């Protein structure tokens, strides 16, 4: 039973991490229908930003963290400006292929600067962050994952639900030409969605870095995991991304714990195939509202 709860805690924290990573992916898809294949590399970029600020420049952790936030937000803006804006109005497949190109480019850039080595952040999580629940110890890493993920998911959930800018973003996702007719700045919405996506990617990148160290390949491969997560949850739904993330996270950890660790990596993709066969819109995806 104790083993079960350990796995549960671990699975939940992995799940929230996936949810956070998927949030960025869903944002871009929702506003501009672009599947971002460079997602994993955005995660890795965020992780390396934090590495540079905290380890190389030896900035205090909170400042390094803030600078990573600002830096990745700006990077999202720049990516949209330089690479995606010129393609507005072109066919979608072009834009999606562009993100595949961006993925290779970013990966190459990171390998060029940092090499393929495994880096570790300086130890900064306070030990008293861990919680003892009966016989089960929740280590600080998981606690940090919970706190950061839930905080950001909540923050962006509220942002989309209540803030004017969030409502404008949803209106563009819903009906672009109607949004345009009301004066919604559609290009600004695209830029903002890339910026926010890069920002939440950086968050999840940092957490991944804390858990398993910073390495270009091992982090960017996590970007692929968002596909099963968002397909399961439904591509357009932020709530779906959260539920999908948690389900995939739990499935993975339980498979790893009870069946076999080598099966662990495969499970999400088996789910992906099953969902596509049975419920292609995902659990919370959009089936057009059709009045009869």
């Amino acid at each position, binding site marked *: 039973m104790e083993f079960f709860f350990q796995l549960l805690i671990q699975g939940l924290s992995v799940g929230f991490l996936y949810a956070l990573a998927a949030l960025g992916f869903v944002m871009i898809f929702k506003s501009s229908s672009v599947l971002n294949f460079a997602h994993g590399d955005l995660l890795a970029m965020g992780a390396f930003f934090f590495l540079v600020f905290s380890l190389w420049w030896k900035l205090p952790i909170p400042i390094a963290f803030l600078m990573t936030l600002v830096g990745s937000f700006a990077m999202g803006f720049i990516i949209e400006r330089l690479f995606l804006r010129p393609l507005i*109005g072109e066919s979608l497949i072009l834009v999606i292929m562009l993100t595949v190109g961006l993925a290779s480019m970013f990966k190459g850039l990171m390998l060029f600067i940092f090499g393929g080595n495994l880096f570790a952040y300086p130890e900064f999580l306070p030990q008293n962050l861990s919680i003892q629940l009966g016989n089960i110890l929740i280590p600080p890493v998981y606690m940090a994952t919970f706190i950061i993920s839930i905080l950001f998911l909540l923050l962006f959930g509220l942002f989309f639900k209540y803030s*004017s*800018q969030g*409502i*404008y973003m*949803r*209106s563009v996702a*819903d*009906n*672009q*030409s*109607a*949004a*345009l*007719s*009301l*004066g*919604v*700045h*559609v290009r600004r919405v695209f830029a903002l969605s890339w910026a926010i996506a890069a920002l939440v990617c950086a968050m999840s990148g940092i957490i991944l870095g804390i858990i398993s160290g910073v390495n270009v390949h091992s982090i960017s491969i996590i970007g692929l995991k968002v596909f099963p997560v968002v397909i399961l949850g439904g591509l357009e739904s932020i709530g779906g991304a959260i539920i999908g993330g948690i389900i995939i996270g739990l499935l993975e950890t339980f498979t790893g714990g009870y069946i076999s660790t080598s099966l662990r990596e495969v499970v999400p993709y088996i789910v992906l195939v099953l969902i596509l066969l049975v419920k292609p819109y995902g659990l919370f995806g*959009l089936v*057009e*509202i059709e*009045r009869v």
Partner: protein
Amino acid sequence: MEDNILLQLNNISVIYSDVIQVLKGVSLVVRKKQIVSLLGSNGAGKTTTLKAISGLLKPENGKVTEGNIVYEGHGIHNSSPEQITRLGIIQVMEGRQPFKLLTVEENLRVGTATRWGKPYKKDLELVYHYFQPLVARKHRLAGFCSGGELQMLVMGRALMAQPKLLLLDEPSLGLAPFLVREIFEIVKRINEEQATTIMLVEQNANMALQIAHYGYVMENGKIMMEDEANRLRENPDVKEFYLGTASSGALKSYKDVKAYKRRKRWL
């Protein structure tokens, strides 16, 4: 130039995708605080005229190739929809295009995009004042509202932007007659009480000419006729082809054959 002219189209041509010419030299004038109605059959170029004004041609690969559009003394034919909406020109598109996955109130809030960050509570009250049925639907997803409610919603959404010039594209489309009357009544009240200038594109010529001050009749990308709305209502051609009130049942004479030819020209 007269002082009370709000918008002036001077001989504009519009071409889609560099080949399809839809407007062939349209000129018209919209005076402040008036309701100007643009009539014509399908494909006459009414919607294109509205889109040329609001800048929504661009996303559809259309372009104003000749002539100019002057609004409050500024040429706006090269401006983007973002700039044009911020000058106070808001178009309500044909076919009611709500944001289906947003609630009614969220839909209305999108109307504040041209003045992001400014208070909007008063405007919400105003919209609910004109469109009472929306109050009860506030928190419902727009995708589940009825056609009449949606028409009110999209007009209310445009009203949230505090427009100086409201472009309405076929507000009566697919609505029950009593609802059409109600919608037109509200359009008239908005024009009178808010001093909003309104440009109204309609197939329902009868209703449109009842509330409009001035009317234009379009055909084949050109303006065929223009006059005060009440005079247009009395015009025999308009009467016959748009209002359908010409004497029927009378014996057909050679005149009717001529009228048929005339009709061919109209439709």
